[in-house]
Each structure stands twice: as C-alpha cells, then as structure tokens.
C-alpha cells in the first residue's frame, strides 16, 4: 500500500508541476497590459535581460535540486532487512567545491547587475523631457514645467525621447510604477526621487501605485499614453490652449454651477479657479478615464462620481458637495466639454 502511494502521488505531482510550468509558456497572459516581461523601454530591456539570465539559471538549479532530492529518496528508500548505512559525517572537498560553485553562479548574476544599477540611475541628459510627478492620496498629478502643462492621472509622452521624472509626495509614501516601461520608484515625502525612462513606441500602458498608502491604494492608478513625436506636440498644444468655452446650454449651466460652488476650492480650471488640492480640470474632457484610471470618462460615470465620490472610491478626499438631480449632469456636461 505504502509503496504505491509513494510512487503514484509524486508522479502525479510532477506532472502537475510540469503542467503548471508549461502553462506559463505561450500564453497570452504574458501580454497583459501591465506585464513586466514585454519591456517597451531601454530601462525595461536592461532589467528584462538580467531577469531572463537569472530565470534560466534558477530554473536549471531548481530542476537539478528537486530532481536530486527525488532521486535520492527513491534510490535510498529503506528496503527490508537492509543494514544500518555507513555513518558518513561529511566530505570537506565537496563542501568547498559546492561553496565555490554557488559563489561563481552568484557572480554571474552580479556582473550584469552592478553596471545596470549605475546605468539606470544615471543623471538624465539636459535634453530630456522633464515631468514632475506628484503622488497624493489617491491620484497622480503630472506637471510639465518646461511646457507649462498641468494634468492628472493620464501621462502623455513622446516615443523615443528620454523623460526625466521628478517624484514628489505631499502626503505619504507612494510608488510610481508602469510595469511595461520599467521598474518602480517610490515617491517619498520630504525628498525628490528621480527615475529616467525612454518609451520605445506609441501605445497605452497602465500604471499603478505600488506602495500601500491607505484606504484607496488599490484605486490609485494611472495611464501612460505614448504618442509619436508629432502627435505629442499636438497634444501639448491642445493642453496649452485656454479652456474651451461651452456652447451646449447644459454645459453652460454646469460652468456657472462650478464657478459658484466649493469645487473652486480644490480644482483649477484655467481662468476660472485656482484650487490645488485636487486634480487640474482645465482639459478634463480630453481624458479617457476618471478617478485615477478607475472607470471610463462617460457622462453617466462622471455624474455618479460628482454626486457621491465616496461611493465610487472608498475614502476619497473629495467630499459629497450635495449636488443632486440635474446638477451632477450639468457639471458632467461642462467638464466633458473641456477638451
């Protein structure tokens, strides 16, 4: 009985393990929007190379050790009547040898690692595009100081150009992470952290806060939209223009309501209000999502958000301002008109 139990289950497990491992190959899973293994920047590629090097070695070592363990168990399992085995205490040469082998393997990992650390933390060239990132509970502010553009939660970048990020945290520690573009860098109050990236090609890459920062940490997401150079310049030009004046009567009601309400205390719409506690809304209508990449920027979602932000995003610092009935719809129409 014990013999068959012993021989059947390990085999089944082995097959399961192999199945699991194989399942990780050739799946579209690796192409997920927030994948780390399809790098789209130089930073990402440097990282990925070292990761693949380490993955192959650790896979090999893992298989060797597990196979060795299994073999030893089968080969030396007790047979009835066998004598007490030889009481071997050790083997100095073997110990020295495998210690050296381990040290060498680790050296193989260290050799590309150390230069990569220095390369990825090099000071950016003076020609880099500068972006100041403000990580706050639970949204992201993006300022382009040289371009005089301020936006939130959607980061637009030109492909092929180095971007120098300066990370600021007015409240608690957050972490700025766009997996497809490279590793993360924490956003720490009291200091300015830097990370430098150059996205390869146009595309949309979701990002997320990666350091627990309170109630809605899970909802502190953002979206990176990489354009061709020409399209990026167009986007910048649109952002630099003053806000569009609404023509739709509902949107006009919304504008009127906005400028008379507490909204102005927290939000900036150029020419109308100067609040800095919440995201800049000057070109809010051009964004694809709201609530920090939480949901699509549609009239229905926006109206629901305005009516009861806390319901959509637990703990959000935007209060319920008592907007009811037609008011949220008017405000939504206005904000969405701000292309």
């Amino acid at each position: 009985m014990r013999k068959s139990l012993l021989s059947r289950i390990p085999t089944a497990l082995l097959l399961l393990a192999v199945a699991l491992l194989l399942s990780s190959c050739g799946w579209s899973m690796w192409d997920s929007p927030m994948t780390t293994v399809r790098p789209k920047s130089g930073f990402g590629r440097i990282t990925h190379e070292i990761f693949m090097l380490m993955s192959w070695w650790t896979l090999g070592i893992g298989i060797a050790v597990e196979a060795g363990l299994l073999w030893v168990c089968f080969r030396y399992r007790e047979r009835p009547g066998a004598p007490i085995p030889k009481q071997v205490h050790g083997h100095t040469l073997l110990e020295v040898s495998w210690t050296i082998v381990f040290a060498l393997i680790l050296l193989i990992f260290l050799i590309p690692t150390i230069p990569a650390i220095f390369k990825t933390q090099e000071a950016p060239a003076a020609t880099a595009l500068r972006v100041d990132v403000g990580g706050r509970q639970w949204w992201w502010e993006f300022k382009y100081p040289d371009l005089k553009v301020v936006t939130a939660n959607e980061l637009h970048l030109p492909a092929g150009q180095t971007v120098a990020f300066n990370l600021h945290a007015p409240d608690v520690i957050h972490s700025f992470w766009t997996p497809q573009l490279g590793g993360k860098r924490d956003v720490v109050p009291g200091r300015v952290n830097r990370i430098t990236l150059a996205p390869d090609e146009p595309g949309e890459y979701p990002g997320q806060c990666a350091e627990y920062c309170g109630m809605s940490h899970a909802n502190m997401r953002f979206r990176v939209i990489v354009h061709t150079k020409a399209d990026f310049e167009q986007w910048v030009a649109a952002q630099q223009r003053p806000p569009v004046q609404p023509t739709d009567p509902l949107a006009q009601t919304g504008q009127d309501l906005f400028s008379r309400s507490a909204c102005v205390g927290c939000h900036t719409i150029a020419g109308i209000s100067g609040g800095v506690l919440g995201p800049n809304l000057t070109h809010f209508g051009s964004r694809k999502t709201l609530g920090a990449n939480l949901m699509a920027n549609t009239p229905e979602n926006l109206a629901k958000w305005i009516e009861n932000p806390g319901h959509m995003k637990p703990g959000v610092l935007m209060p319920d301002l008592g907007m009811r009935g037609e008011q949220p719809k008017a405000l939504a129409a206005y904000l969405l008109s701000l292309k």
Partner: protein
Amino acid sequence: MVTHAAYMPGTKVSAGSVLWSWITTVDHKRIGQLYGVSAFFFFLVGGIEALIMRLQLAQPDGTLVGAQRFNELFTMHGTTMVFLAIMPMSAAFFNYMIPLLIGARDVAFPRLNALSYWVFFSGALLLHLSFLVGAVPDGGWFGYANLTSAQFSPTQSIDFWMLGLQVLGISSLMAGFNFIVTIINMRAPGMTLMRMPLFVWMSFVVQFLVVLAFPVITVALILLMFDRFFGTLFYAPAGGADPLLWQHLFWIFGHPEVYILILPAMGIVSEVLPTFSRKPLFGAPVVIYSGIMIGLLGFGVWSHHMFSVGMGPVADSAFSIATMLIAVPTGVKILNWIGTLWGGRIQFSSALYFSLGFIAMFTLGGLSGVMHASPPVDLQQTDSYFIVAHFHYVLFGGSIFGLFSGVYYWWPKMFGKLLDERQGKVHFWLMMIGFNVTFFPMHFLGLIGMPRRIYTYAPDLGWGFWNMVSTLGGFVIALSFLVFIWNVIATTRSGAPAPADPWDGRTLEWTIPSPPPVYNFATEPVVHARDDFWVEKHGDGHGTPPRKASPAAQVDTASIHMPPPSYWPILLAGALFVMFSGALVSIYQVVGGGLLTFYCMIRFMLEYHHGKDMGPDVGPAAGGHH
C-alpha cells in the same frame, strides 16, 4: 519553599487544581504546550483572514469585503502569522525540546519562562481587542511611516498595533535571555558546543538574533508612539524628518526577524533527516557554521527591502552584494541535507515527508529570493505578487512545513501518543498540493504587474484566472488542516501509546519516557559524542562499538527537587497588560498599571530571596530558581 503537591511525581491531582496548575506552571514542557496551542489557534485565525482575502480577490471588482476591511485583513494576517503563529510555534519547540536535547531538567530561569508566555498572551490579547472596539490595525504588517502618523491614521488602530507589538517584543526578549543562558550554561557533562544537536544550535543563533534585533524595532515603535501621542517629529516630513528612518529601523529588525522565522525550522529538518536516513547529518559542522554566518550576515542586508526608495547606486550595490553572499551558506545547507539522505536507509514517516517538503519548497523560495537580490530586477518584483509568492514559499513552504515536521517527530515524546501516519501523509499531500496551487501562480501575477495589498483589481488586466486558481488552492490548504485536527483528536482519544524511542533516535530526548516525567532525566546524562544516544545503541560505525546500556539507576525520583509553581508570572504579565492598554484609555490607567507592574516585579524578584540570616537556596541540578 513551597512545593505544591501537584508537582510531586506520582501524586494524584484534583480536577479543580488542574487549571491553577497550568496558570502557575513554571515547567518548560507545559509552557511549551501553552505556546503550541496558542500558536496553532492563531495560525487558524490568520488562515481565516487569508481565506477571506482570497475570496475577495478571486474575481476582479470583487465585493465580498470593502477596502477598509481588506486593509485590516492583510495587516492582521501578516502580523498574526509572523508574531502569533510562527514565532510562538518555534517557541513551543524551544521550550519543550531544548532542555531535553541538552540533558537539562529545565531552563535557566523557569519563572521568567512562564512570564514570557503570559506576556506573549497579553500582547496577543491586546492586538485582538482591536476587533472588539472596531479599530483594527490597517497599516500593513510593517506599518510604514508616515502613513502610520496621527495625521494619516487618526483612529486607534495603529495604537493597538504599536502597543501590541511592544508587549510581544518584551516577551521575545525575555525568552531570548533565558535560552542563551540555558544553552551556554546548562548542558549535560560532555556536551561541548560542537556536540550540541542542530536544533539547539539553530535556536541558539535565533536567540542572539532576537536579543540584538528586537531592541531596534522597540526603538522604532517608541519613536512612533512619541510621534502619535506626544507630537514629536521623528517621522514627520513637515518637521524635516525622513520617513525612511522608520524603514531603516524596521528592516534592521525585520531582516534578522525572517531568519528568526526560518532557522528553527532548519534546525528541526536537521534533526529529522538524520533520524529517518539512519545516518548522521552530512557536514554537521558546516551546517552549524552556515547557520552562524546566516545570523551574522543577516544584519548586513536589510536595505534589500528598500531598493525602490532611491538610496542611490552605491548603497543599492552594497546591499545587493551582501544579499547574494547570504545565499551561499543557505544553499550549502540544502546540499548538506540532500547529502544526509544520500546513502541512507530512508524511512518515509510523516515527519520526514514534511522535512522533504521543506527542502523542496524552501529551495524554490530561496531561488526567487536570489532574483530579488538584483536591484534592477527587484524594481519590477518588489511590492508585487512576485514577492508575495517568494515570502510565502520560504515562510509557509519553509517554516510551516518545517514546524509540522517537528510536530510529527516530537508529538510522541510530548504527548505519549503516536499520531496516525497515514493521516499524516494525507495531511502532507493535501497541504503540498494546496500550497503550490495557492502560491505558485502568484509568481505569474507579479510578473504581469499585480501589485500587493490591493483589495480589488480591474477586469481587463488578465489577472482573474490565476487569482481564482490561487483561491481554490487556499481551500485545499484549509482541508489539510482539518485532516491534521482530526488526527490529533482521534489519536488523543484512542491512539497507540508511544514508546520512549519510537524512531530509533539519535539524541537525548529519546532516552527518557514519553511523555517525560516532570524532572526529565532521573540521572544527569553524560555525553561522549554528537548523536550520543545513537552511538550508545549502534556504535559510531568507525570503530566505537555500542555501549552496554547501564542498569536502571536506583534514583529516588521523589526527592528530585523541581522549581515550584508561581503565580507571579501571570500577575506581572497582567499588570503589564493594564499599563500598556492604559495608553489607549487614560493616563491614570498607565500610571496605575505602572505602579502595579512595579509592585509585581518586586514580588517576583524577591519570591525566593531568603529571609533574615538564612542560608543560600539549595537543591540538586534543577536549574536556577529565578
């Protein structure tokens, strides 16, 4: 000198005094059992917290629990598993087994030992009282500043966490002092340090780690307490402070802490493998020195938890090198364990299964750990589910499997009953399968960008499938526990009684009855070699023949004087509890509790101080009376 009737071997005890005897016990074996039962209970609590989280995460946009509740769950799950499950389970074995393994009758300070347990109990109670008042800790198990400041965590939830951990730290420190003295000073004649069993060695290293690392988190928590209660600026960026101070202090404690969590399990595996291979641990001195190296180096790698905070390339490189270095002694140990099995005559007991599982799973966790040692790679892995996978492989696949190996191995000695071997194997396979199904997919989830500590996630990221698989695995783990519980219940009721030496063991604990009498050894053993009992029975295979078993010594066991029970440990622990919990209530309670603590301390310390002109305390080799 009061010697309770309950403590005289052979005396019957009345049911009513049984509870009192547990409350006042200073017997290391009973204290070990108290720790063991508590640890298992909290392991189930932590497990339920995990299952709720897994149910919430099984699908995108889950609605089982909300953000606040989920944040509380992952905080309490981590805190509970680290401080209330793994550490006390290790403590259960330190307490029960170390004196037996070194041939002693108790630890150096039996009442301090009892005090450690009751203070642990107070700390666990304080942490869980937070549930009753609805202020459950929600800052994560490592509570990063400045999220934990009064400004960003205004409720008492962080206070409960902070104070609970302080109390638990006091318990661990006292136990650390106790075991360091016990191991140095109470070994049987002939037991040189290098002849000590491996479990004692690994535990010895652990006690030094405790004694040196816990004061650092004590300071970190004191600074947090002062910030929250008195408005100091230690972690306040507005005052010019650096929130990273918390991270440095925490991880200078935190990294040695993970070695505190794994080394006891490694020690257990180093006992179980030789016993069931029927040959000595391969390279025992090397395994010992590796354990010491891991302990020492463990103090030099802490900032590998901080590769993403922007310490600069030089610091990143230094800690990367140090972290890779520590992989060497760890890997060496794994090969030595396999070398122990090689050439052996392997008996596949449940205890051995769990040790084999340890080796298999810890190897995987160690390999993913080596990946994290490279900062560029780590910047993609840290704070994602990849690292959640890593630490569960080493803490569950490692520590928990190792601890269960110890449970199956030493159960007959502790309880005088054999656990059912077949059910043990069912437990093992279910746990093995469940564990891997739960945690292996988390490597994938991390690699496809899922951050940790999020209560929900969007449906368009491709994370749903593996999250569902992981959740199913969690329930298989739960099932495995039911099998274990059933095994315990059934064998306690009607299991076969265990002989003194069910496994043909190698070390001293197998020379005494199962369960041992209160005095452990009737006569003090004399040790001639490592694995002395094996050498006595079988010779050492290199020329030394087996020793003739000495005739049962005629010892009047009724005259062996053991340290009597005492109620000062529980009273002092209670006073400490009043004082610490007072910080949540009122200054009067703190002061009152402080005075009570002071009074109980004086009574505790003078309990065996002699009266006027009396001679010194006397008694045979029964350990100190303090």
